[in-house]
């Protein structure tokens, strides 16, 4: 039985654990705003069917949408891995450096895939 910190079983220092939690909550706040905007936009976009023109006419060459979606993706890349870290540790009993590394990898993958998608719909031509 370990004495001292509750967190001594984790590979991360307690301050890091708390800041990860904080990052997840802050990204949640950002996402709350982004998701409302996204849901409204989506509902508007799917009226009369979805087409490339419907999406691209809004996003192509738009600095505003570029920034919005870039921020959206960034927030997701923080929020999802930290959340999934809890789910995996509690469901599969997987803890420690291996899990932390896998979640960091997920963050990078989401950021890459997401920002690539943002570029795809924003880049002109």
């Amino acid at each position, binding site marked *: *039985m*370990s*004495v*001292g*910190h*509750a*967190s*001594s*079983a*984790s590979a*991360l220092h*307690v*301050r890091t*654990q*708390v*800041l990860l*939690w*904080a990052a997840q909550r802050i990204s949640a706040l950002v996402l709350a705003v982004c998701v409302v905007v996204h849901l409204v936009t989506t509902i508007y976009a799917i009226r009369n069917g979805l087409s490339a023109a419907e999406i691209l006419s809004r996003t192509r060459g738009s600095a505003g949408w570029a920034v919005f979606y870039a921020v959206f993706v960034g927030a997701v890349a923080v929020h999802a891995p930290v959340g999934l870290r*809890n789910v995996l*540790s*509690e*469901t599969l*009993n997987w803890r420690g450096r291996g899990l932390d590394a896998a979640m960091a990898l997920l963050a990078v993958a989401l950021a890459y895939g997401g920002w690539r998608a943002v570029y795809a719909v924003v880049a002109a031509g």
Partner: protein
Amino acid sequence: MNNPPPVLQVRVWRGAEDGAFQSFEVPRHESQTVLDVVTYIQRDLDPTLSYRFACRVGMCGSCAMTVNGKARWTCRTQVASIAKNGAVDIAPLENLPVIKDLVTDMAPFFDKWARAKGQFRGEHTRKDDFARIQPESAQRKLVDEAIECIGCGVCYSACDVVRWNPEYLGPAALNRAWTLHNDGRDVMQTERLSAVAGDAGCHACHTQMNCTERCPKHLSPTKSIAGLKRAALAAALKGRL
């Protein structure tokens, strides 16, 4: 006696981690509690049954068990309110090692209480004047609404995070830490926040609220833990963790 009392079909856990439910038939009576049922079984049907109780009037928390799937004080659980179809199953509290039958080892529960720095430490001696704490102050009210915990273990038994995360301190220990965090006389604040923060502490709580739902004293460990989350964040941002 014209009508013999109806009979309860009672299943009681026997054994330790490995074991099985054993069935008994227990005569029903008015105002019967689940503790009455367990007592009847041990005295009249099977003296080898092991169980805990003390005050039998809802003050000590010793008689806590899992009744029809819910952790509760058996001395304050009326059979009439839970045995809708005349059946009751009684098992030991969850999330704790089972010593025998309905008796669990409470040591891990109290070890975590200690790990959460759930003890008061002051710096006044008897040579100092009394500390002045205003009972109506916002901070003291936060303490008062959480202080009545008697360490019965019902919340700990009900919590899924305790079940899934062996290191998790649990709702009772964290609730007590919150009362001490708000105690103006306590001087162990920084160490305590360090002890209760993080993956095995308050930040692992998912607000499932099984603890608040089941607490026989109607406390809300969820609320206390939310307070600790905020306090620990502030400490982390100030570099105090």
